[in-house]
């Protein structure tokens, strides 16, 4: 009795997860592949790849520019942010300095600031530097903005590595920086890579900073491009928007499917315990 009840519950759970997660994604795919987005009311559905060809071939749509900007900005900022977070995480995990706890709480509190409290002033700051609509103008704030998350994840990986490893190296006369590079990082490499992936998703999806700090396709990212997409006569070009969305979602969906274990670990290490 109980066994069968359980099996039914389990199956319904799986079906719920699949429907909940995939229906909107499938809908995006279907619209991107159909000739006109209104096939639900206007008769038949014609499958076509035209939207994809157009979005890639028509340079005035600038989709490839947005994608390139996004990958460069998210790639560079996630790499640097992880490096900087690794340095700080190492110190917090290994050096028993005073105020460690206060430092961690302060960094955590920073990540809770609403972006709108930062962006007004940041906009003026970047204008004065002449960095509006440039890569550094986006990359530098992204590094700062993803550091708190990066720090917590790196810290959780470091604190799992036995201290005996450092102590042995220290006896051999290595300084702390050498220990980090030669002893800790090789062991924490999986953690390092999954932090980069998580922070990549984090920056790839960011919207408000990119909206304020960019003005055209030279540095606008995918979210900004897709949010500001306009049709010629007011009607939104749904086929283009959805094919651009599908292509842009591919990298993050692949990351989610291939590295689900690392992502889940990264996101939860800080929360549990």
């Amino acid at each position, binding site marked *: 009795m*109980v066994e069968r*009840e*359980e099996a039914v519950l*389990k199956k319904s*759970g799986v079906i*719920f*997860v699949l429907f*909940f997660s995939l229906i*909107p*994604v499938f809908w995006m795919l279907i619209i991107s592949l159909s000739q006109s987005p209104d096939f*639900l009311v206007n008769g038949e559905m014609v499958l076509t790849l035209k939207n994809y060809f157009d979005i890639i071939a028509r340079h005035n749509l600038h989709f490839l520019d947005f994608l390139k900007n996004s990958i460069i900005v998210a790639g560079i900022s996630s790499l640097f942010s992880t490096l900087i*977070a690794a*340095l*700080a995480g190492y*110190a917090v995990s290994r*050096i028993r*300095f005073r105020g460690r*706890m206060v430092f961690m*709480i302060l*960094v955590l*509190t*920073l990540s809770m*600031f*609403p*972006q*709108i409290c*930062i*962006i*007004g*002033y*940041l906009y003026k*700051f970047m204008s004065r530097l002449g960095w509006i609509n440039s890569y550094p103008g986006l990359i530098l704030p992204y*590094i700062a903005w993803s*550091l*708190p998350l990066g*720090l917590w994840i790196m810290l959780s990986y470091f*604190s799992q590595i036995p201290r005996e490893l450092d102590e042995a190296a220290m006896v051999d006369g290595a300084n702390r920086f050498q220990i980090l590079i030669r002893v800790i990082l090789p062991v924490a490499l999986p953690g390092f890579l999954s932090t980069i992936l998580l922070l990549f998703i984090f920056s790839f*999806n960011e*919207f*408000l900073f990119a909206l*304020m700090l960019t003005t055209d396709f030279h540095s606008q990212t*995918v*979210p*900004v491009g*897709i*949010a500001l997409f306009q049709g010629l006569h007011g009607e939104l070009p*749904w086929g283009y928007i*959805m094919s651009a*969305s599908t292509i*842009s979602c591919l990298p*993050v*969906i692949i*990351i*989610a499917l291939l590295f*689900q274990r690392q*992502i*889940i670990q990264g996101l*939860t290490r800080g*929360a*549990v315990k």
Partner: protein
Amino acid sequence: MNNKGRDALLFILPLICFVILFILIPVIGTLLNSLRQDVSFMPKRFIGFTNFVRLSADQKFWQSVLFTLVFPAISVFLEMVFGMVIAITLNQTLKLRGLLRGIALIPWAIPGVISARIWQMIYRYDYGLANYLLKFVGIGPVNWLGSSSGAFLCLVMADVWRTTPFVAIILLAGLQVIPTELYEQAKVDGAGPIKRFLYITLPLLSPIIIVALIFRTIDALRVFDIIYVLTGGGPGGATTSLSIYGYRFYLLGDFGYGSAISVMLFIFALIFALIFIKAGKFGRLSV
């Protein structure tokens, strides 16, 4: 300063520099700007709390405050419910469980702007999927984005879709540390799945539920991207969050007033953050 302090400082210095330059200084700048008249092409001057006095008499501001507080209450509650169902499912022994976990992450992984665009299309009055499906149960067509309650519901559903995976994996982590013997024992005693959930899972998971709740609440307070795309804050300002309202003044070049709005949001977030630090006391910060 002792040796340890100096060593540590060297390692955390890059982080401190970035955080001070690109987070702390801008936040302080916003706080100071809220006390200024700072409109593009006009001389700046200190005006004390005038911006806040103007806020207190601004109907649209109070409308956004209401939205900003009600929106998290409803959407975070739903995220907890759905997140729990998904977390429990992902914690079962299943074939292809890894793949299912990856699939469950997808709504969280894709950019918020894109999920807002997908929902915007689903909610279209004339040929949207939502009205098409509702027709079969004899409802509709509903003017989703044209009415204030409809627009509110759309935003809640879009936000729930996008952030439930995050809640689910936080809860999943909590589920994984509950000893399985407890369930085995309850099974022997003849407790069904629902009883086991109510008497074992829920009480043991409550600290993690609180962590997820507060993380999500603080995040939902600052909601911006899905509103920007889905409703633009409309109709008639019904779905204008404080982030959207503040942004609108930045866009107009009125940085003083926009900053005052941001500061109010900051205060709300701070209150929740303080609760978070208090709630975090139960063992969370054992580094």
